[in-house]
């Protein structure tokens, strides 16, 4: 390719100004080189850790040293009955959590979108909130309330009614399923309500004109039409159940309930020496199970990954419910919201003003926990690390996701699909597995690529974890920009680089902010990745929280939890505000 520098004078009437060939163009690097570089980067970030994880599941070593080839790691699981209870527990846990969530989420979504339930707008706004409150915090709140020895509820029962022994015990199955369901209801509602709102009322109206009753319409038209969506979301929630870590760790461990995630963690942290081989093999088994379910879910969804709510100012006819039912559903919502958010958070706030857990009385009220948090520095250091790591990861995801989205949307190049697929690969990968994979992967290479114990490896973990949603957000942001806006810049003299700077970047700013908030929130609330990868100076706030919990320092835990909550909430409020500006 030959490039001419400067514009050639036209015959009559000189064109105004001078165009210069940009330096990048003069290098003459074909764009496919950039695509390939990006593919290589994603391969290192996403594929490489799992390749190492898979490989090392056949070796005897530990992170940093592979050891020799062996099949013993798998023999641990397939050569004994040990895998069966874990599988069974995982299925019982995920299925019951899904079952409970499905009933309530369907009821709430249908009521909010399709009936005259009171305060439907408020309900639609508030039911998603529990999903955004980190699981870890509400779990702490409930454990303070309902642990069998000195939980608030048991103490009250003893003091007020003189009941001896626990009235409530959240350790084990009951607490595990109860608390996990609270979060799942919120998530499923969030996914389902769009479908209910989106569904064209004319299908239902057609059935009514043909003589069907409201009940018949619901059973023969509404639910069957939504069945594929419901099924697909259910599978997703089931997968989430298999990968969830915080709930099994906090509620399952003390009750002796072990599912995949806390079993893997137990082998790494509670055994001496840690059983890396068996844990890694179990991780590979878990990946295989989730992957099979994910393929099933994709098939059901027919390639659609997102619910897009399109109901522009359109109001489907609402079912008129009898008064008792209307208010009954509303009461259920109030109870739900109290259980999911208000009560556990109130307990945390309450506890943050008492020095000794279980000793409540005016004489014990103190600000010591708060001064502790500020003076001892551990929590503040965790907060600082969390903010730094999450910020860097979010910026990295914006850049990577923006490039992936741009190549995927704008070019017809097949590498665009490869990139999109790679960015999506970590979606629904269990955090514990991801942490273990990164541990193996970055402890293996020689210096200076050995990132074992550095902050960088945690940041890489956050990037990988945030990439699927972050890249999807950036891709949809690129999608919303008409290609003619860029082409117009090119034709009128803007080089590729200047088009990015003056046109693309300003237009992507809002989408990039949304992606930032999402990735930051994912990173800031994540426990599993830093838990497996931190060292003392790279501890994040979530790890600090777990430390306070494990050392039963409930006062400091409560105060620190509120800092974590404030961090996530400020971010979400910012996001809401910028959205409402549009």
């Amino acid at each position, binding site marked *: 390719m030959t490039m001419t520098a400067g514009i050639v004078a036209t015959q009559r009437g000189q064109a105004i100004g001078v165009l210069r060939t940009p330096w990048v163009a003069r290098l003459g690097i074909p764009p496919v080189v950039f695509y390939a570089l990006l593919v290589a980067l994603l391969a290192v970030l996403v594929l490489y850790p799992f390749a190492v994880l898979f490989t090392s599941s056949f070796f005897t070593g530990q992170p940093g040293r592979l050891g020799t080839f062996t099949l013993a790691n798998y023999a641990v699981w397939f050569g004994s009955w040990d895998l069966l209870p874990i599988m069974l527990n995982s299925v019982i846990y995920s299925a019951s959590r899904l079952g409970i969530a499905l009933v309530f989420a369907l009821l709430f979504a249908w009521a909010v979108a399709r009936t005259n339930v009171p305060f439907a707008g408020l309900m639609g706004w508030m039911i998603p909130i529990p999903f955004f409150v980190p699981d870890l915090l509400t779990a702490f709140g409930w454990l303070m309330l309902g642990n069998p020895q000195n939980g608030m509820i048991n103490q009250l029962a003893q003091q007020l009614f003189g009941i001896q022994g626990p009235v409530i015990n959240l350790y084990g199955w009951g607490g595990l399923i109860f608390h996990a369901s609270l979060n799942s209801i919120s998530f499923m509602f969030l996914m389902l309500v769009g479908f209910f709102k989106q569904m064209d009322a004319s299908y239902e109206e057609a059935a009514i004109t043909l003589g069907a009753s409201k009940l018949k319409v619901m059973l023969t038209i509404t639910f069957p039409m939504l069945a594929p969506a419901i099924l697909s979301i259910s599978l997703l929630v089931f997968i989430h159940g298999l990968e969830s870590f915080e709930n099994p760790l906090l509620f399952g461990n003390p009750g002796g309930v072990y599912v995949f995630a806390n079993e893997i963690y137990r082998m790494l942290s509670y055994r001496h020496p840690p059983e890396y081989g068996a844990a890694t093999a179990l991780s590979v088994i878990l990946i295989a199970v989730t992957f099979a379910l994910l393929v099933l879910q994709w098939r059901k969804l027919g390639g659609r990954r997102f619910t897009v709510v399109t109901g522009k100012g359109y109001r489907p006819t609402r079912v008129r419910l009898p008064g008792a039912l209307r208010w009954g559903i509303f009461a259920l919502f109030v109870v739900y919201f109290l259980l999911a958010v208000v009560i556990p958070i109130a307990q945390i706030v309450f506890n943050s003003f008492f020095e000794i857990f279980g000793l409540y009385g005016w004489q014990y009220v103190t600000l010591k926990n708060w001064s502790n948090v500020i003076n001892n520095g551990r929590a503040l250091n965790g907060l600082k690390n969390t903010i730094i790591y999450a910020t860097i990861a979010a910026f990295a995801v914006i850049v990577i996701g923006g490039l992936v989205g741009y190549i995927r949307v704008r070019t017809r190049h097949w590498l665009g699909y490869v990139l999109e697929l790679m960015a999506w690969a970590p979606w629904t990968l269990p955090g514990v597995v991801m942490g273990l994979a990164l541990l193996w992967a970055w402890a293996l290479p020689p210096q200076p690529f050995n990132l074992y114990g550095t902050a960088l490896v945690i940041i890489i973990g956050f990037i990988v974890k945030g990439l699927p949603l972050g890249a999807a957000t950036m891709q949809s942001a690129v999608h919303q920009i008409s290609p003619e806006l860029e082409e117009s810049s090119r034709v009128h003299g803007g*080089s590729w680089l200047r088009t990015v700077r003056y046109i693309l970047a300003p237009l992507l700013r809002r989408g990039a902010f949304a992606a930032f908030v999402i990735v930051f929130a994912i990173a800031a609330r994540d426990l599993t990745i830093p838990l497996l990868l931190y060292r003392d100076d790279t501890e994040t706030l979530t790890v600090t929280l777990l430390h306070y919990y494990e050392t039963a320092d409930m006062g400091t835990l409560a105060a620190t939890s509120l800092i974590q909550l404030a961090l996530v909430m400020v971010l979400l409020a910012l996001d809401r505000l910028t959205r409402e500006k549009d």
Partner: protein
Amino acid sequence: MPDIALDNLSKTFGPLVAVDGATLTAADGELLTLLGPSGCGKTTTLRMIAGLEEPSGGSIRIGERKVYDRARGIDVPAEMRGLGMVFQSYAIWPHMTVAENIAYPLRMRHVSRARQRELVDNVLDLVGLGGLGDKPSTLLSGGQQQRVALARALVFEPALLLLDEPLSNLDAKLREQMRFELRIMQKRVGLTAVYVTHDQEEALTLSDRLVVMNHGEIEQIGTPSDVYERPATRFVAQFIGKGNMIDVAGGVDWLPSGARLMLQSKDGTSEVQLPAGSIRTEPARKARTNGKEQPAASLFVRPEKITIGTGAKSAQAVQLAGRVLGRAYVGNRAEYLVMINDATSLKVESSTDVTIGAGSEVTLSIEPQDMVLYRPSPP
């Protein structure tokens, strides 16, 4: 201002041939229109000129400068071609004011700020938006956006102006008004312009010459009256204006002086004699001949050239008997559908002076010089 020449320009998308060897020129100061149905390759051709689409073969010359030549490996990037372009969606950048939008090409050309302001003010006056420079571009109406897009494409006195269906997003009234304004502005500035549209009325009123395209191939290049009065191919005849295309099943006598054929009508057959000048031999088409059987010949006549009644102007006029199937009132004239035999009905336009009801038996007369006989090229 320079002229532009495309030589054997092609574009394929995988197995699909979007543009098949387009060769054409636009003279200095000329407004050339690329006209055709959607998917005919007109927009792809324009985008190749702009440098937004890489051709698969051929060459493009703008003035003295080759901007693309496959054989010699020349491919000047879009931003170095120095062209002005008006996009279908206008492509007004929403994060800039009107003046910032218009000044963008000047900014890219390192023009001083003072000069930028001066040029922007001038062009704003030219397009009739004087004083609106500081307005945020998101507050503009469709017509105003269109003018801003035009101003942006004109402000730096480009080598060539490209317009991609610039009026298609305006409402009908505004479209007609802008059509004339565009024409006047283009002539005043004296720019060479290439204009893409699928709207034949727009093409006929705006263009110095037009290029009719179909399936990636050029069907005809000519002035608006050339194309309307003497369509070179069956496609052009049917695409531009209204027309009757009568398949002549068999029996055409090809004579040195012309052709003779028989037309079946309700009360027998009428002989049609055509001079050699009324016969068009169509070039072989790769795109359209595969699969479909072409009729031996087709006779073409426009509805307004058919007279209802026996009042023929000349003795050579062909007389056809038929029955009126329906009549539609279209304001200043009436349209009839007249069946002349079981397989053929003709569209006929006439004044609204006389009303002929459906079912009436009528006689149609057509002057021989108003008919064209299309004949596929010999294999």
